[in-house]
């Protein structure tokens, strides 16, 4: 192992472990503010440190602090205290590990060695995801059962049977995808989607396998216990579902586990159906070979984008009522300056690349990898937005409707899809 190897291991593992955790802040903020905007209200926008509220991000900090300093109660009636404490840990750990095999950039070639950009460079991709999400059921069951509480038990029953039954259509949808891609390795799958069809249509999973995409996404919503399938926490009937008895940090861990699972499943959805880390129309080779034009285009686009972004910040970050020396205007100026400084730093790097880098050098590879990571994260954020968007649009299903949908609609459709896909693939050779 050379030093470079060790550094790459650390980088990859920390990306795949900490990015989901950092995205918690994005998820929670997005959930609240998008919910607000969809309902024509504003969402949390008051909490701030010295007037800096960062668009609601500081509210998360406040809530996190609140949860951390709350009293952590284990009720007297909880008989199996060990299992009770274990449950949130299982939920959270399963959520984080399930992201480990998702590639966030194309294989990086440095010094003639290639590094697979996954947390664990293993080629069992999607099966790993299915295996680990299966484990999250344990967290739910243990939480509901060890709480010794009827509401928790009912919530856990619903939630667990829902997760178990939706795993089947999910797995079947994956099979028809695998027939098309010919591999279970998520890196291979992502690379496959980098190709284009007739030169201009990207070969994304959603275009090749629309039915599988619908089935998989619906099943993923159910697996994450998100609306419209969040019967487990149906507030009106079950108070809060399986995590009813949990308080303070133990509740927070459940909560975080839920959002990390959401992140992981959006990452998998993006990798399977929306081209993964691929920038549409530009595959990795093309980018590396044409690193100078690419850097130049970025160099021009970024300030233009920033100009309009600054305008947007100005327009939206002001007090909506008469106020002398509006402090929010000063706040907006601070944000805009910070962003401009960031852009300036990136520009300097791009200029350096433009001036010195040759195609197919380490710098070119690194720049392309970074661009792909950004693309991947943007795609995942959009998918997370879809999760939030659906949650604040669609009302909850009834429980029998949910099981009916899973077993009577999605399952036969997924089976049919496998046969049709197999027939077409065989017919086309």
């Amino acid at each position, binding site marked *: 192992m050379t030093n470079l190897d060790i550094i790459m291991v650390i980088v990859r593992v920390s990306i795949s472990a900490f990015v989901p955790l950092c995205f918690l802040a994005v998820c929670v903020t997005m959930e609240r503010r998008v919910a607000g905007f969809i309902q024509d209200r504003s969402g949390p926008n008051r909490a701030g440190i010295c007037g800096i509220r960062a668009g609601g991000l500081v509210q998360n900090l406040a809530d996190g602090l609140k949860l951390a300093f709350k009293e952590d109660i284990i009720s007297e009636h909880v008989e199996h205290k060990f299992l009770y404490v274990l449950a949130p840990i299982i939920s959270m750990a399963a959520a984080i590990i399930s992201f480990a095999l998702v590639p966030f950039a194309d294989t990086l070639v440095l010094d003639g060695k290639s590094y697979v950009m996954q947390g664990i460079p293993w080629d069992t991709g999607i099966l790993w995801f299915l295996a680990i999400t299966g484990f999250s*059921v344990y967290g739910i069951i243990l939480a509901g059962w060890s709480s010794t509480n009827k509401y928790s038990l009912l919530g856990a029953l619903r939630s*667990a049977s829902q997760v178990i039954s939706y795993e089947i259509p999910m797995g079947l949808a994956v099979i028809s995808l695998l027939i098309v891609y010919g591999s279970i390795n998520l890196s291979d799958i992502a690379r496959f989607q980098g190709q284009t069809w007739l030169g201009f249509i990207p070969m994304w999973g959603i275009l090749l396998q629309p039915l599988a995409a619908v089935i998989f996404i619906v099943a993923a919503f159910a697996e994450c216990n998100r609306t419209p399938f969040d019967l487990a926490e149906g507030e009106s009937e079950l108070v809060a579902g399986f995590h009813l008895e949990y308080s303070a940090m133990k509740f927070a861990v459940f909560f975080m586990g839920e959002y990390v699972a959401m992140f992981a499943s959006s990452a998998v959805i993006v990798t399977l159906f929306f081209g993964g880390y691929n920038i549409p129309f530009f595959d990795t080779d093309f980018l590396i070979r044409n690193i100078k034009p690419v850097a130049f285009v970025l160099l021009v686009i970024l300030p233009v984008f920033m100009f309009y972004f600054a305008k947007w910040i100005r327009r939206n970050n002001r007090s909506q009522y008469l106020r002398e020396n509006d402090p929010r205007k000063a706040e907006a100026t601070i944000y805009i300056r910070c962003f401009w400084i960031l852009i300036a730093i990136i520009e300097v790097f791009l200029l350096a690349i433009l001036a010195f880098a040759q195609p197919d050098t380490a710098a070119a590879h690194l720049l392309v990898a970074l661009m792909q990571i950004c693309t991947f994260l943007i795609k995942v954020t959009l998918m997370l937005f879809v999760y939030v968007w659906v949650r604040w649009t669609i009302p909850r299903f009834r429980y029998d409707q949910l099981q009916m949908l899973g077993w009577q609609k999605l399952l036969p459709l997924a089976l049919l899809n496998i046969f049709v896909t197999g027939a077409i693939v065989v017919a086309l050779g």
Partner: protein
Amino acid sequence: MYIDTLFSIFALIAIAGSLGLVLFRHPMQSALCLAVTMISLAGIYALLSAKLIFLLQLIVYAGAVMAMIVFIIMFLNLREKDLPEERERFTYLIGGAVLLIPVAWFMIKVMKSIPGVKNSIVGNGFGSIKELGQVLFTNWLVPFEIISLLLLVTLVGAVVLAGIRRESND
């Protein structure tokens, strides 16, 4: 060396899990111990670079089967007071262990008599999905189909049995 250490760790966890399965009183704890055993067995499969078996062990046994068992135990919602009193369980346990000694001795003997296979790196792609699939669908096609028929029979049987119950309830 490091494989050996990992193997011993997995083996110890597996044994501890199965001991817990027998010794714990509450079915939920026993079931979870069994799940631990399943997972550490999966770890041993992974050490043998049998990737597919490792994943199937995780998905099917640790994920689906054990989750079903735990789910059903949760469904029954057994509490400490519902459990039967087992006064002489330790007597039975020890008796069972004593009875097993000859079998174990015999097994150890068999193991020892197997000619030592030299440790060697297995061929590229061993245990991976493609190779396994190819073998399964060429050399072992008939047994594979027969097994799937068996599963189908069980499935239909379960549906039929459930149907009969419903009628008699009406």
